[in-house]
Every structure is written in structure tokens, then in C-alpha cells.
């Protein structure tokens, strides 16, 4: 039963991811006085891509073809770890937050390799930049997450969320720092403005898009889907860790329904904030990203220190 719900939750994750992307795009369009595409447009894109005949470069090796599957499944596995509507699911026990970061690293590893596989300058450029940014983002992210896990004294996400939930509303300065750090990291990792622009194909600025330039058809669909999934995943992380209220602790249908509604609401709200931010802020130069990320790291560190000094001092 528990396993079933876990699988269900994961599937829900996978299914809802394009919706979040659609909603985000919609909000952005409205903010920028453009006519918005339908909320379901991402689904249509994915469907269309899967039915197209993929064209693969002659230079490509098996790795290029295998990479999308690996990336997608790694991201799905990461998603399965994160509690969406309910905590205490068995999947989250099989892997904790560090493993989740590991899954991201796994996906990124293959994405970067795929970028290098064809042997074009763009692919290499994208891989190089992606690895740079992610290697700076990863410590910042772990710093933020460690703050939480040390508070909850567990690295299990569901355990941590349950801890916050049961503790009730306590204003922790460390959480404020951690939240901001995590948001900054999430923006960098999911390739949003101001770090990367998912809509651009201008060679000097693109990162994520540069790596997947050679993909088409179902391969492209998988990668796109995986990145939508990643966006949602970070959203859920922020929403459920810092504002866990509404998430279900039991597996009754009603509770689960409320959980679903709560997370949908929270994500919708987050997306609006993100859209506003993306509209207001301009993209940064590549080499300012390090400052941005070291700021995130600093926030994470401050969160950690304030946890140690202010909250858990003996």
C-alpha cells in the first residue's frame, strides 16, 4: 500500500511537472504583456516531440542516445525521494537528501557528457559552463540543506519535513538564511534568469540549451521533461521544507487530497514569484555567477552558523 502511494506520488510528480512549466510561462507572459500559450502547451510539445523521428548526428555515440534515458530516470528517482503530498513514504527512506543531490549530479554528469559527444564547440561550451555553475551551486545547496538536517537531525527529507511540521511554527533565523540560499541555488540549478535563460539560443549566453542543441525527437522530449521535473522538484523542496503545512502525514484519501491541493497552491504561488523575479531581473554575465553563488554559499554558511550559535548552543 505504502509503496503504491509512493509510486503514485512519483507519477504525480512526473505528470505535474509540465503543468508547472506551463503555468510559469503563462504568468510570465501576462506579466510581460504577451499573449500566453495554453496551460497545457508543454504537454502538447512533449507529445509532439515523442512522435517525431529523432535525428541524430553521425558523430554521436551510444552515450548520446542513452543519456536522455539516464537523465530522465535519475531525475525521476530524485523526485521519488521528495515528499510531494505525503511524508513517511518508503521511497524516501531508500534515499536521503544527499542521495537526491547525487541523482542530480548523475543527471548532470550525463548531460554534460552528451554535450561533449558530438564534438561541436557549443556542446563543449555548455558542458563547461554547466559543470562550473553546478560545482559552485552544490556546496551552497548542501550548506542550506545541512542547516535543515542538523535542526531535524536527520538527512531524510520526509523526516526533516515531519520534524518541521510537528514543531509548529517556530521562527528560526537559520531557516531564513537557508531558504534564501536554497532559492538562489534553485534558480541557478534550474537554469532560470538571472543565471541562465531557458528561452535563449544566443551562443554567448546559453548554458543548458547549448548542451542539448543536437537533441531532437523523443530524446529532446525526455531532456525537456527532466528539466521541468527538476524545476518542480526544487519548487517542492522549498515549499515543503520551509512551509510544510498541508502535507499529509497519513495515507487516507482525504488527507492526500488536501496535500495535493496544498502543494498545488504553494507551487502556483512560487511560480508567480519566480515569474515576477524573472521579469524584473536581467540576466547576469557568466562570470558574475560565481559572486551570485558565493553569496548563496555565504547565506547557507550564515544559516549554519546561526543554527549552531543561536539555536543549538550549549
Amino acid at each position: 500500500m505504502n509503496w503504491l502511494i509512493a509510486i503514485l506520488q512519483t507519477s504525480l510528480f512526473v505528470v505535474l511537472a509540465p503543468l508547472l512549466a506551463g503555468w510559469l510561462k503563462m504568468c510570465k507572459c501576462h506579466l510581460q504583456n504577451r499573449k500566453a500559450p495554453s496551460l497545457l502547451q508543454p504537454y502538447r510539445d512533449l507529445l509532439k516531440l515523442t512522435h517525431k523521428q529523432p535525428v541524430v548526428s553521425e558523430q554521436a555515440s551510444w552515450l548520446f542516445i542513452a543519456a536522455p534515458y539516464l537523465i530522465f530516470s535519475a531525475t525521476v528517482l530524485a523526485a521519488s525521494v521528495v515528499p510531494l503530498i505525503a511524508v513517511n513514504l518508503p521511497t524516501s527512506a531508500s534515499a536521503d537528501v544527499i542521495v537526491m543531490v547525487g541523482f542530480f549530479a548523475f543527471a548532470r554528469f550525463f548531460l554534460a557528457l552528451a554535450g561533449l559527444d558530438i564534438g561541436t564547440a557549443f556542446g563543449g561550451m555548455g558542458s563547461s559552463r554547466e559543470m562550473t555553475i553546478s560545482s559552485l551551486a552544490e556546496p551552497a545547496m548542501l550548506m542550506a540543506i545541512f542547516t535543515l538536517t542538523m535542526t531535524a537531525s536527520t538527512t531524510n527529507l520526509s523526516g526533516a519535513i515531519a520534524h518541521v511540521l510537528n514543531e509548529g511554527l517556530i521562527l528560526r533565523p537559520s531557516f531564513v538564511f537557508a531558504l534564501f540560499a536554497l532559492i538562489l541555488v534553485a534558480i541557478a540549478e534550474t537554469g532560470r534568469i538571472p543565471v541562465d535563460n531557458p528561452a535563449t539560443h544566443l551562443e554567448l549566453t546559453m548554458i543548458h540549451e547549448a548542451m542539448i542543441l543536437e537533441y531532437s525527437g523523443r530524446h529532446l522530449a525526455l531532456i525537456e521533461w527532466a528539466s521541468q521535473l527538476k524545476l518542480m522538484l526544487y519548487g517542492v523542496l522549498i515549499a515543503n521544507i520551509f512551509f510544510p503545512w498541508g502535507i499529509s502525514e497519513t495515507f487516507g484519501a482525504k488527507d492526500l487530497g488536501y496535500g495535493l491541493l496544498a502543494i498545488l497552491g504553494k507551487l502556483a504561488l512560487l511560480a508567480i514569484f519566480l515569474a515576477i523575479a524573472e521579469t524584473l531581473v536581467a540576466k547576469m554575465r557568466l562570470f558574475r555567477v560565481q559572486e551570485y553563488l558565493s553569496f548563496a554559499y555565504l547565506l547557507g554558511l550564515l544559516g549554519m552558523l546561526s543554527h549552531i550559535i543561536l539555536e543549538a548552543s550549549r
Partner: protein
Amino acid sequence: MILLSAYCAVLLSFASGLLALMMHQRQNLSAISEYGFNTFFTRNVHCRGWLNKNLEERRFPVFLKQAVFVLLGLSGVFAVIAGLAVLLGKGVITDQIALGLPWLPWHIRFDGLSGFFFLIIGIAVCAVSLYGPGYVRTYKENEHPFAALGLFTGLFVTGMLLVLLADDAFMFMIAWELMSVASYFLVAFQHENPANRRAAFLYLLMAEVGALSIILGFGVLASFSDGFTFDALREANLSTTWASIAFVLALLGFGMKAGIVPVHVWLPEAHPVAPSHISALMSGVMLKVALYGLIRFCFDLLGDVQWQWGVVLLVLGTVSALGGILYALMQPNLKRLLAYSSVENIGIIFMVLGLSMIFMANGHPQLAALGFLAALFHAFNHALFKNLLFLGAGIIHHQTHELNIDMMGGLIKKMPQTSALFLVGCMSISSLPLFNGFVSEWLAFQTALQVDVLDNGVLRSLIPVAAAALALTAALAAACFVKVFGLIFLGQARSRNSEKAHEVRDKGMLAGPALLAGLCFFIGIFPGVIIHLINNVSSQLLGHTLPNDSALGWLWLAPVSAEQASYSPPLVLIGALIAAGICYWYLRRSPLTVMRRAETWDCGFGGLTPRMQYTSSSFTMPFRRIFAKTWIIDEQIKKDLQGAMDQDVVAVHYQLHIQDHSWPRLYQPIAQGVNNLARQVGRIQTGNIRTYLGYSFATLLLLLWVIS
């Protein structure tokens, strides 16, 4: 029985070395066999025919090389058996050999810790001896005599095994130096290259300094006890100050061998120039022996660890880990890169060991055992994947005659098996889930996160920072190995050599790495196997084990408690298979969407050439900018100008030299100091006999004055 197999391992490796010496003794060997058959085995015609055939002029070298590696492999097998046996038997076996000083025979002690490292060495040696025969075939006998290579390989392995068995300071040092010297000769094996000679000199020099430091460390212990046996040294009753002095000396000595920043410089020089299977042993195994020495010295001989030592290890480890991987990132030479990455991994191990010490000294032996576990586990993993990668690098070098990764590319299509094995190595070392590297790194994080139990505020804030540095290290390692794999195997060939490369024909050369790759994956999925073994070590050494596998069974890894953290690699594997399977099935079901091959899109300019690809230096350019202070960067761009007013750029020359800071900061001043001092001292030898008489006269007067 267990000890017997350990001895077998030692003797077999020694025998393999001696056998290699027979390379030029074909005549004598055949004479001996003739004599032997005539006198003893007159009837055994079959065997005789076989032997005679092998002793023929043409077949003999091949036969001998194989025989040498068979012996070496057997030694590895025995080492594995002995290691496993002693780990599972949980016993401590001691013995004495009547060698050494008259009042100090060689003391032998075989316990869990030695057993564990026996296991590491055994596996590595097995893989290497599978790989070796194919690899050494290309060496021309008159230029690179196999006798030297085989002899010193055998001695090298013998030395390492003996270090693990030693139970007194004297034998320990002998074995230790045997290991150093033998590997020195291996580094100098292809000595016609100046780089090899330089590396060998540096290596031997640092080995010597390190060994002296270790001797001094033992000396400190010995001056507080009566004797040099480890038993006596354990009894030594040291004040904290003296214990700390001993610790620092041991750290310097063992750290030098292990390659801790800033005393790591020999490592990236020496490892790349040795033959690849030797680099594999040096990087994969010898560094672990240094680690063994440190553990033996600190945890076993010194006994009461201080938390300050832990902090020292933690800081040094962090610096090494970050420094190592940042230096590795910049290297275009594959083996140099791997060597630097060894610095990184050793740094991680030291870091976790430091954590273990801190917990130990603060009275949390359970957590100390956790840290210890993580450290040993990572040591084990590093031995596996670094061996694998070096062997892979050897294959690549063997097939392309290149080590510069800017000259490779596209090998995945030419060498599919090698590339798959190498990919496993890269994934393990980048600590991606499902592979062994991840498990030990996960355990390291778990150890670091237990910081809450400590009372000391400095430690409580220092350790998380170290953990974040560990995260940065891991991410950089991933970037580094994306670069490695991407530039070597993916893309288009960047030189003629790699264009013409093909898969190795020798099955052994693939079997060795395949063994290691298989283990990497197996341990990544079932880490419990190794953890169980290490638990036996830590129960012997620290008196505590982990409470793992009680609540969740063998499937789960829950080092502290199931609530705090858990990881189940088999379930993750199943999940990944399901997810990948579903989408694969779903997407591939339609026959209409069969993949089509087409030319790469070239932005309409036409003709993508391999030179347009990213190179090592361009791949790492962002890192170079961000962490600019870490290196000494010498970047030169020269333009050849031509035409009216020198306006046309004909060619652009780009040069990039990246150097370690430790050279100009640490080593050159020392070298210069010694040279200066020598020059000053040289002035007393004036060549004038009257001056000399004056010295004699002055000495006499001085002494007479002193005496009265």
C-alpha cells in the same frame, strides 16, 4: 593457516621478482631443466616437452613474462584470501622471523587492519597481473629490460605486504623503504626521458625525508619505552606534548607518502611517468599503505588521540581535497590528472579520519567508528577506481601513444569496451549514486553531520564548512571527470594517433580493469559487504562498531539510525531500472520513430573540424577564472602579424602553463638554501695547503683551550 597464506602472498610476489631476473638466463634454465629431467623425472615426457617448448629461443620471453605475472597474480589471490580470512576470523596472529637485528627479530602481526589492506593490495595486484602481460609486450627488451621491471614490481609488492605485516619499528622501516626504493626504480624505468629522471629523484628524495620523519616519530615513542616492537611502543607513556610531536612527525612522514598538500609534489611527477600498471599500484595501493601507517601509528600505537590532531587532519585533508581536485582540473596530461585526483581522494580520507579522531577524543566512539568506516571505505573504493582509471589510461596510452587529452577524442567508437570500463571508473570517482565512490562519500557526509553531539563551538562550525568543502570537491571532481571522459572518448579525434586507434586485442588488458569495474559496481550496490569487513577492523582497533543492518536488514545502509539517514542502493537500482525501462519501452514502441542519422548541424558554415571542439584548457577556463588564485598561471598569446601596417593576423600562438604554488613557495627556497649553504661551505676548501695547515693548527689550539 591464515598467516601461511599471507606469507605465501609475500613470497610469491618476491618469487615473481626473482623469476623476472631469469630473463637473460635462458641457457642456464634450459640446462637446469635438462639436468632435472634427466635425473629426477625421467618418465614425465609430456611435462618435459611442454617445458622445452617454452624454453625455446622465441617463446621464452613471452613464457617468462606470463610466468612472472602468474606468480604475481597468485600472490594477489593469496593476499585476498589471507585478508578475508583474518577479517572474518577476527583474530590477531603474531609471529617472529629470525631476520633483523640480533636482539630484535622481525615481529609479524596480522590483524584486521592489516587484513583489510591486504585485501586492497590483493585485489589491485590481481587486476594488475591480469593486465600486465599485455601491457609490457610493447617494451623492447634491449631498451627497457623486463628483468628490471619484473624484479622491482615484485619487490614493490613484497615491500607493501611486509609493511602491513610488520610489528616492530625496524622491520616496518625496512619494508617501508623497500617499497619506496622499488617503486623509485619503477618510476625511473624509462629513464631516457629527463622527466622520468627528475620525477624519480624528487620521489626518492621525498620518500627519504618522509622515512626519516617516520623514524624520528618511532624514535620519540621508543625513547619512552623499552624496545622497538609495536607492543613495547604501545606501552609507551607519553606526555601530550611528546605524543603530539610524534603525531606531527608521523603525519609528515606518512602524509608525504600519501600525498597531502603541500608535500604532494612528487606524486604528480612520479605517477605519470611510471608504466601504467605501476602507476595504478602506486596511486591505488601505495598511498593506502601510507594511510595504513598513519592509522597504525595514531590509532594503535599512540592510543589516546587528541582532538587537535583531528582538526589538523581535517584541515589538511580539506586543503588537499580541494587543492588536489583543482590542480587535477587544470591538467591536460591524463596520468598527471589522475595523480592529482589521488591527492584529492587522500585528502577526503584524511578529512574523515580527522573527524573520526575528533569524535574519538570527545568521547563518541560510535561516531568515531563511523568516521573510521567512511575513511577505510573510501580508501578501498579509491584503490578500486583509481586502479581502474590508471589501467584504462594505460590502455589509451598503449593504443594512441598519447597522454595529452587534448590530442585524443572519439575513442568511444574505436575502443568501446575500454570506454565502458573507463566510464565506470569516472562515475565512481565522481561519486555518482549506484557506484562505490558515492557510498563512501555519503558516509563521510553522514559523519560530518553528526557534529551536533560535540560541545566545542569551533568544531561545530568548522566541521560543516569542511563538509561543504567536501561537496565542492565532489562537484569539481565530477566536472574534472566529465572533462576527462568527454575529451578522451567523445567528440572527434583530435590527432592522427587517436584516429587510428583501435581496441586492445589482449583480453587480459581488458580483464584487469573489468574485474575492478565489476567490483566498483558491486560494492556500489552492496556496500554492506565491505562495511561488514571494516566493522571487524574497527571493533579490533577502536573497540566499537556501527549499529548498522540491524533495523533495516542488509538492503539498507543506515549508519547511525534508520531515522537519521538511510540509503538503499539496491532499491535505487531497481527504481532506476524501472524508470528507464518504462520510458524506453514507451518511446521505442512506435516503428515510425526510428532514429535517423544525419550530419551534425554546423550553423551553415560548413565543415566542422575537430579543432573547433573544446579542449582541456577551454573546458576549464571558467574554473581558471574563478579560482585564479589557486594556481600560478602563465598564459601567453602571441600573434603573428603580417601585411600592411601589420594588420593581418596570420597565426595565433597560445601557451598556457599552470603550476602548483608549492613549488616556488616551499621547495625552491629549500633547494636554494641548501645550494647556498653548500657554496658557503665550499669556501673552506680553498686549495691552499697553508690554509689547511692553519685549520689544523687552529683546531688544535681551540681544543686545547677547551680542554684546559
